[in-house]
């Protein structure tokens, strides 16, 4: 198999994802409403609640809006990845996933390419969100917008792989509500996205440890540090490690034949 084949396939999958995105432009906008509500409404109410402490990467006191912006970038990717997982269930039910996997290229390559394609759309949303966040004085350094890109790609790969793993277990579309309750919300709330971890530790040590073990925390910290031009090897290391493990598990476990159309629940 030549590199050209890989490239052709890569472009094909990316194009398909963009086409899908282009047809769902309103979804792009509506997906931005959620983090913006958090930023403008929720954060405004909590402005004075955060308390006094300077934590890296910040060098001085910050508003709550500034604190939660990186967490909300993570939230955009989290929701998109889970919706991506949903779309894979959908693709599977319609059989188009099987068409994709009929390609003679290695399955892990196909799946990672698919994850990257979904990530590109998420990252586009993150940048639009960051631009809008300027309106509430969330102003990271200019180079931070570039420096955050690797962290965003890594986060979208990690959460995409997680979505893919979940997709192998979801039997039907309707199960997405369960994903919301058991994956998205716990991951988001039990992380450093909304409150700094020292705050969590003050509230309850066991909650603090859950947050520490939540890979989403480290993804958010990787985004936060990069956005402010600081290097956080631990956050990158953990996010990268978890990405590799999840991707291996997801690609190994992905069986397009597993679910059947129209309720026939037995695997083929």
């Amino acid at each position, binding site marked *: 198999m030549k590199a050209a084949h890989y490239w052709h396939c890569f472009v094909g999958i990316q194009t398909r994802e963009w086409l899908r995105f282009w047809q769902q432009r309103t979804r792009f906008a509506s997906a931005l409403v959620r983090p913006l509500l958090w930023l403008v409404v929720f954060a405004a109410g909590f402005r*004075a609640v955060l308390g006094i402490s300077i934590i890296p990467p910040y*060098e*001085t*006191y910050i508003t709550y809006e500034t604190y939660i912006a990186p967490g909300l970038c993570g939230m955009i990717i989290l929701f998109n990845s889970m919706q991506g997982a949903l779309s894979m269930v959908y693709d599977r039910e319609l059989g188009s996933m099987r068409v994709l996997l009929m390609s003679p290229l290695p399955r892990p390559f196909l799946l990672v390419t698919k994850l990257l394609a979904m990530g590109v759309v998420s990252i586009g949303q993150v940048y639009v969100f960051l631009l809008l966040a300027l309106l509430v004085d969330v102003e990271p350094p200019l180079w931070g917008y570039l420096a955050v890109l690797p962290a965003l790609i890594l986060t979208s790969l990690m959460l995409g792989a997680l979505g893919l793993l979940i997709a192998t277990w979801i039997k039907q579309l309707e199960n997405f509500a369960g994903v919301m309750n058991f994956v998205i919300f716990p991951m988001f709330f039990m992380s450093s996205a909304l409150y700094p971890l020292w705050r969590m530790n003050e509230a309850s040590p066991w909650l603090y440890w859950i947050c520490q073990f939540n890979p989403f925390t480290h993804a958010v910290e990787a985004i936060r540090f990069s956005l402010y031009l600081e290097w956080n090897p631990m956050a990158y290391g953990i996010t990268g490690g978890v990405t590799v493990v999840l991707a291996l598990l997801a690609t190994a476990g992905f069986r397009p034949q597993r679910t059947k159309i129209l309720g026939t629940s037995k695997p083929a």
Partner: protein
Amino acid sequence: MKTLFKRTALAAMIGLSTPALASVAYVSNEKDNTLSVIDTETQKVIETIDVGQRPRGILLSKDYTKLYICASDDDTVQVLDLATRKIVDTLPSGEDPEQFALHPNNKHLYIANEDDAIVTVVDVDSKEVLAQIDVGIEPEGMAVSPNGKWAVNTSETTSMLHWINTETFEIEKNIVVGQRPRHVEFSRDSKIAWASAEIGGTVHIIDVDNLEQIHEMSFKVPGVNQDRVQPVGIELTSDGKYAFVALGPSNHVAVVDAKTYEVLDYLLVGARVWQLDLDKDETHLYTTNGVSGDVSVINLEDMKVIKSIKVGRYPWGVVIDPTS
């Protein structure tokens, strides 16, 4: 080529013999009985100097060779030699000195004695008490106009500004302002005086020629309860463009257009921001944040808080030595 080499060598030698001296900021830590010395280039504390008990007001002599320190609980004013950074002398101050001001003649120090309701004038060379002037109850803020004509004292409980003639040491006028006036700052041309009233939440602008109030400002920090908006320290840029007002427990510094008295912005700093000082080229403003125990640095070019530097407990005053 040879010349180039010589020049480079010469430049290297000059570089070695006179290392670029970074300017330093001195911060009095009320609860630690110390001064923190901050290198304004690296924005790090480079030295901590032990001083008398409860250091609050600090100021530089006009020739920038000494730093005067109100050691409130020692009832004295200490003199720190800036070359050696050692306490070399003490001056009589009356009881509980908190704020003071030095006359442009570099000799007469005006000290507010909170407990005795007086202002003590001390000659720093002869250490003589030249006068003790009765003022209102709980005198607090102290300022001398740059032209040396007026000394102004604020009395917290009487809520007045007492205008003292520096030739006769007598009060010529009292101006009632908002509750608990704390601090007075003169414009460089001595024409305008700004006075903060902590409990009143106001800043009063006084026309010095006529000794009359020409404007009263109040502040509204978004998201902060009005009770917590308590103006204390004031700093003016020499070009007359900006005034900065430290708003105490609101944890914000107000940026004010010094011509229109309009608040341009509120900047978030540490907890209970108290006193302010500008660096030599007026590109950065330093604020002491008492409760959070740090000093915030504001970049004046884009009016952003760029850093907060941990110092001792309850930092009170800050001065930047422009010669270092």
